[in-house]
């Protein structure tokens, strides 16, 4: 570590809020930790690891929520409003790490902090107001039961930005979070979501309805490097436009992915019971943006793309509905996966879900499971409290979503998520449920022939994606020359390597779609903070984070059994372009190759040697258990 580190980029301060005692304190972050973990997800997971009491229930007040940003957050780096929430995962009981774009991360820094740690539990609903290095816990009883949009509106008005957005950000939970729906999300900046692992339910369990950030603090930049830093950012912004992502997401949003994915059999249809439907032309990105909706750009902080849009539906049964433009996963999840083939309907459902505050991936595979069960007579209208959950019935789905968010009737059972619900319903339900074995639904794909996506989520320790899907392409940065076209050992090796790189990127925190070359990103970071990283060092940081995530889960009792998938995910598609393909026959080989590449034993546990080599010696006592 260079003696001058860190010379810029970090505010170096943590705000700790204890909701049980009402005590608010400020702490300094150890610069050695900053050097080892950079920031964001890495730093967040490290702080969480240190402060977690093993074996607790996710809703135990002793649990922490660690919100962290990186040194580049709030700078001119593309998508620098991103932040990372790290806490216990309500679905798996293990770790979760959820990131969201928008503005919140940048404004947390302008308010004065790199890290926010929330602990304890308030008896009454409260919200947290952080302004220029001052924080206060405020009464939120007027916000109880309100949706995320109304919550945002109420708080903005209170702090002087009525019906407008300039310097204030709000991250809030909806009714789902308050009612401890296990897959409740945190919504920030009206439509940006930290979705994975029930982060919203954890907030709800602490009685925390919202966090407001507002401030005028500057991100420190060493004056000697200010021009070089800007030059590197310019290069980053240029490069981001010229990548595959820049040319696709940058121009058409992620909805532009839909048809390509569908053509390969990678988009889920009706709970993975088929891969075919008619009317696919309505799922063309241009059609959705220009014909099915009126759209206005509403980008995240420092976005150089025209990705996110605010939209209004212009045709179909929900003409007039407004909201954020759906992303690929929502389009697939609230569309064909529920037998709904009208893009405008997905917008209506997306806005409702944003307001209630739930994770779309768990929700889509939950409702699709119930729709399949209803069709096959596994459950009747009576058991569903009078709701006929037919394929394609958006009103029925919407009503079920509302009941889940209130934990009302059958909604109370479904609020437990796909795995728990299917186990409780019993019968044939476990056989049709779509989840990975740690206990969460995967991202909204039909991943059964998309090896990179499936394997990545099966082994991920956070309940989301940890690595990069190279099923269809390689990577120059990582010297991955050919795609992982088959479910073989190569897939396992690539998954390990790409996880290290991806997790390094999650320590930086920026919009993942606006990735530049590794060299440019590392150079930008070095110029700002005075670090001396190169690609090899960056991969070592990523590997440190991946190993620490795994050790968090090993400490919680995770076994090899958790690195697997539900029965449905192992079955081959019955039709369409991916018909007959499955990872199941070779899965164990892929898994062992992944473990080996990671320097883990055959049970998926890191070895002492690798932990020591990665400065994770403090986790070794866990192995002795």
């Amino acid at each position, binding site marked *: 570590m260079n003696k001058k580190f860190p010379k810029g980029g970090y505010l170096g301060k943590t705000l700790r809020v204890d909701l049980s005692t009402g005590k608010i304190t400020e702490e300094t972050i150890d610069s050695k930790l900053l050097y080892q973990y950079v920031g964001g997800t890495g730093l967040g997971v490290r702080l969480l690891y240190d402060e977690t009491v093993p074996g607790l229930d996710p809703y135990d007040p002793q649990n922490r929520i660690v919100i962290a940003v990186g040194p580049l957050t709030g700078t001119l780096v593309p998508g620098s409003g991103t932040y990372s929430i790290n806490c216990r995962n309500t679905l798996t009981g293990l770790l979760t790490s959820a990131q969201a774009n928008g503005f919140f991360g940048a404004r947390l820094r302008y308010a004065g902090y790199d890290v926010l740690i929330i602990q304890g539990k308030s008896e009454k609903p409260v919200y947290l107001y952080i302004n220029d290095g001052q924080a206060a816990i405020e009464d939120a009883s007027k916000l109880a039961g309100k949706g995320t949009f109304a919550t945002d509106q109420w708080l903005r008005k209170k702090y002087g930005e009525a019906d407008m957005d300039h310097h204030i950000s709000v991250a809030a939970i909806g009714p789902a979070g308050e009612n401890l729906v296990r897959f409740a999300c945190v919504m920030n900046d009206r439509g940006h979501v930290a979705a994975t692992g029930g982060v919203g339910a954890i907030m709800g369990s602490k009685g925390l309805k919202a966090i407001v950030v507002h401030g005028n603090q500057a991100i420190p*930049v060493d004056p000697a490097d200010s021009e070089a830093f800007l030059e590197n950012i310019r290069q980053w912004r240029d490069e981001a436009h010229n990548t595959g992502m820049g040319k696709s997401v940058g121009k058409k949003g992620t909805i532009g992915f839909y048809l390509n994915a569908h053509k390969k059999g990678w988009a889920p249809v009706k709970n993975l019971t088929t891969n075919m439907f008619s009317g696919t032309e309505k799922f063309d990105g241009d059609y959705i943006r220009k014909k099915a909706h009126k759209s206005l*750009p509403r*980008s995240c902080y420092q976005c150089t793309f025209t990705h996110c849009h605010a939209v*209004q539906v212009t045709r179909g049964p929900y003409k007039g509905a407004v909201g954020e433009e759906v992303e690929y996963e929502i389009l697939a999840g609230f569309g064909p996966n529920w037998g709904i083939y009208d893009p405008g309907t997905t917008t209506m459902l997306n806005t409702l879900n944003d307001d209630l505050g739930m994770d779309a991936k768990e929700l889509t595979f939950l409702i699709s499971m119930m729709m399949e069960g209803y069709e096959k007579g596994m459950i009747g209208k009576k058991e569903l409290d009078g709701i006929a959950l037919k394929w394609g019935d958006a009103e029925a789905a919407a009503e079920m979503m509302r009941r889940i968010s209130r934990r009302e009737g059958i909604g109370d059972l479904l609020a437990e998520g796909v795995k728990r619900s299917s186990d409780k319903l019993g019968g044939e339900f476990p056989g049709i449920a779509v989840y990975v074995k740690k206990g969460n639904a995967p991202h909204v794909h039909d991943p059964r022939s998309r090896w990179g996506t499936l394997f990545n989520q099966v082994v991920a320790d956070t309940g989301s994606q940890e690595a990069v899907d190279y099923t269809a392409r390689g990577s120059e940065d990582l010297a991955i020359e050919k795609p992982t076209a088959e479910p073989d050992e190569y897939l396992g090796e690539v998954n390990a390597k790409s996880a290290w790189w991806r997790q390094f990127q999650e320590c930086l925190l920026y919009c993942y779609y606006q990735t530049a070359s590794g060299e440019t990103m590392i150079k930008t970071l070095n110029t700002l903070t005075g670090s001396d990283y190169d690609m090899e060092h960056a991969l070592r940081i990523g590997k440190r984070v991946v190993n620490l995530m795994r050790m968090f889960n090993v400490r919680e009792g995770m076994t090899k059994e958790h690195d697997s998938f539900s029965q449905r995910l192992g079955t081959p598609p019955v039709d369409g372009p991916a018909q007959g393909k499955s990872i199941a026959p070779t899965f164990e080989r892929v898994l062992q190759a992944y473990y080996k590449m990671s320097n883990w034993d055959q049970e998926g546990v890191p070895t002492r040697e690798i932990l020591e080599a990665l400065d994770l010696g403090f986790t070794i006592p866990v192995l002795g258990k």
Partner: protein
Amino acid sequence: MPKQLKIVSQKCTGCRSCELACAYANEREMNPSKSRIAAIAFLEGTYPLPYNFVSTCRQCADAPCLAVCPVDAIERTTDRTKRVVVDEDRCIGCGQCVGACPFGAMLFSGEAKKAFKCELCGGNPACAEMCPSGAIVFKETRPFYAKAADCEMKGFALLSQRNKENAKRRKKR
């Protein structure tokens, strides 16, 4: 024709790159609150979608700030930009120019107790360079004369109100 900023809010994506680029260029701070340009999203718009609004000094050909300054501290440059600049040495911090600007583009510094504004970064505006959407471009354009209708827009009213309040508060501090 003078070379100035042409701003078309309808093209804005709302990324606020202009604000941060401005603050960094002029104050060497990654801190949007120090910006001389404002990018605001109005959440309840006419569509009824949210819409973006971007505003900074228009370098008015009939600049009211320049006319109202009691000590002639505000003048127009003679170079190709024909921009309106504040001479810090001459400025007495009376704040009259802040009140005179219908666009809310004249700002008041609490530290220096002087007026300041967008001066096109000396002829190479950082906001236009960093704007990814084409909403802000630096180009030869007809001299700008304010129309009454412009000044009634919600965004301008909001900015000028805010600046007047800030100036009042900062003068006292």
